[in-house]
């Protein structure tokens, strides 16, 4: 393939990159989509779920061709101590609002849609550097190839060397990133449906908080695929490394809990995956654009963990679309200067889906409160034990029991402060 004549280079064929490339190609832009893996998705890992709206926005009715594992019908959360657990489950009335998927299938499929629209995909190519001339990004350098373009969209993930190269980011702080790990556990579709109380094709998503992270900032997750479970842990990079607990050990902590053991029983682990998750939000970049370049997806912090929903792929797709629209406007003006591209930031702020990042911008700080992991899950479980357990030695009223449970674990002041802050944050 000749690497001449491309107007835009999109770096990284994940959801942000493919959404951007597709949107541009559709409008007749000559776009090159560059992926370092042997195929799109081969380097990518996520918990397991994609919110459908973003895909509908990108593809209209054709979103239904996406490689769906299961549509998520059941949402659940479990608070756990070492030997007890308290679970809540919600069954949604929306049959297709979100679905579980596998990135090696999904990202590959999405990149194919971009190709069908006219984008050129090259794989096995690591972009090593940017072409920078007169303070403006003018292309990319991959190995021996210098590829001149009018603009670059950097969708190169959490580590985003391109944003740093362009001076838009410094290195992230350990408390701004988490380590995500997962085991994929093979289990028959019938077993999954029976075990989780699902109709064929329906899926479940579950979050675990408490004992599984050993009191550190983090939690567990479980998503049902067609015939496997994605079971994983996310732990704060600062916590796991300064408290000297090897990150992978949390996987066994989760798996060995009796609540989880029963869910994966008779399953066979068929893959282990890991990925770093940026938790800082859009502030991980000083700004998401510079002369000749835009940044989208994980690389721009476009994802959201508000403690109960974990969104990355939908945000990446939406930010990729916004980046493409910014480029299309700049192309009309024939002006790719920083000034011309600054409309990108406004688009991001006005885009309703991405606005959620700003609505919940205080969440990351709230979630750094370790009482959420080492005090409250215990409190919930112990209170439930006190309420449900009858031993003939006399019962206290529930309120008195709750008061007794908090004693010595958390001061009334802290409890009230956390509750009020929670009400303001979420």
């Amino acid at each position, binding site marked *: 393939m000749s690497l001449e004549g491309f107007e835009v280079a999109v770096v990284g064929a994940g959801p942000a990159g493919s959404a951007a490339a597709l949107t541009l190609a559709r409008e007749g832009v000559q776009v090159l989509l560059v992926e*370092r893996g*042997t195929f799109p998705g081969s380097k*990518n890992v996520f918990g397991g779920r994609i919110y459908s709206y973003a895909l509908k926005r990108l593809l209209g009715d054709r979103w239904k061709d996406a490689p769906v594992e299961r549509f998520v019908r059941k949402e659940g959360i479990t608070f756990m101590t070492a030997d007890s657990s308290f679970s809540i489950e919600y069954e949604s009335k929306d049959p297709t609002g979100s679905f579980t998927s596998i990135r090696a299938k999904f990202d590959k499929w999405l990149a194919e849609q971009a190709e069908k629209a006219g984008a050129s995909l090259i794989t096995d190519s690591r972009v090593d550097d940017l072409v920078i001339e007169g303070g403006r990004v003018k292309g990319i350098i991959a190995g021996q190839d210098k590829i001149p373009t009018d603009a670059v969209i950097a969708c190169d993930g959490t580590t985003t060397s391109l944003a740093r190269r362009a001076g838009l980011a410094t290195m992230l*702080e350990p408390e701004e990133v988490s380590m995500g790990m997962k085991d994929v556990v093979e289990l028959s579709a019938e077993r999954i449906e029976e075990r989780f109380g699902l109709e064929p094709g329906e899926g479940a998503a579950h979050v675990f908080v408490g004992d599984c992270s050993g009191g550190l900032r983090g939690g567990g997750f479980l998503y049902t695929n067609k015939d496997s479970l994605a079971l994983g842990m996310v732990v704060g990079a600062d916590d796991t490394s300064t408290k000297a607990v090897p990150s992978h050990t949390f996987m066994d902590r989760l798996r060995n809990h009796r609540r989880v053991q029963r869910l994966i029983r008779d399953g066979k682990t068929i893959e282990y995956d890991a990925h770093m998750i940026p938790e800082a939000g859009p502030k991980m970049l000083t700004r998401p654009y510079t002369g000749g370049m835009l940044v989208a997806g994980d690389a721009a912090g476009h994802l959201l963990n508000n403690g109960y929903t974990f969104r990355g792929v939908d945000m990446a797709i939406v930010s990729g679309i916004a980046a493409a629209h910014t480029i299309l406007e700049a192309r009309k003006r024939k002006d790719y200067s920083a000034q011309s591209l600054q409309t990108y930031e406004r688009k991001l702020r006005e885009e309703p889906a991405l606005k959620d990042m700003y609505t919940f911008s205080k969440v990351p700080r709230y979630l750094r409160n370790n009482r959420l992991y080492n005090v409250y899950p215990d409190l919930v479980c112990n209170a439930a034990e006190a309420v449900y357990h009858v031993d003939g030695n006399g019962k206290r009223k529930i309120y008195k029991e709750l008061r007794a449970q908090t004693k010595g674990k958390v001061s009334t002041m802290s409890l009230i402060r956390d509750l009020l802050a929670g009400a303001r944050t979420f």
Partner: protein
Amino acid sequence: MSEKQEEMSLDKRLALVSFNKDPEPFIEVDTKLCQKCEKKPCLYICPAQVYSWQDQLNYNTEGCMETGACLIVCHKIGAKAISWKYPSGGKGVSFKLG
């Protein structure tokens, strides 16, 4: 508990991941600096335990899952000894079920 409970270990996990070794060194560590590193955060953050300690820092890039977290903790908590980039195009880890 059921006898069909699977016992897992990191070695078992890593055996399930496909790697295509990059002949180029994409991780380099100035291990002299590690001698003075107090917290040695790389030993704990890496989900594949690429880094280990036996009198000195040892590392084996072959199991690297390319999270890039070692670079951050080394530079912000550790001794700023690690230089890290992604492996060459098409090399390194390949996830099938990520």
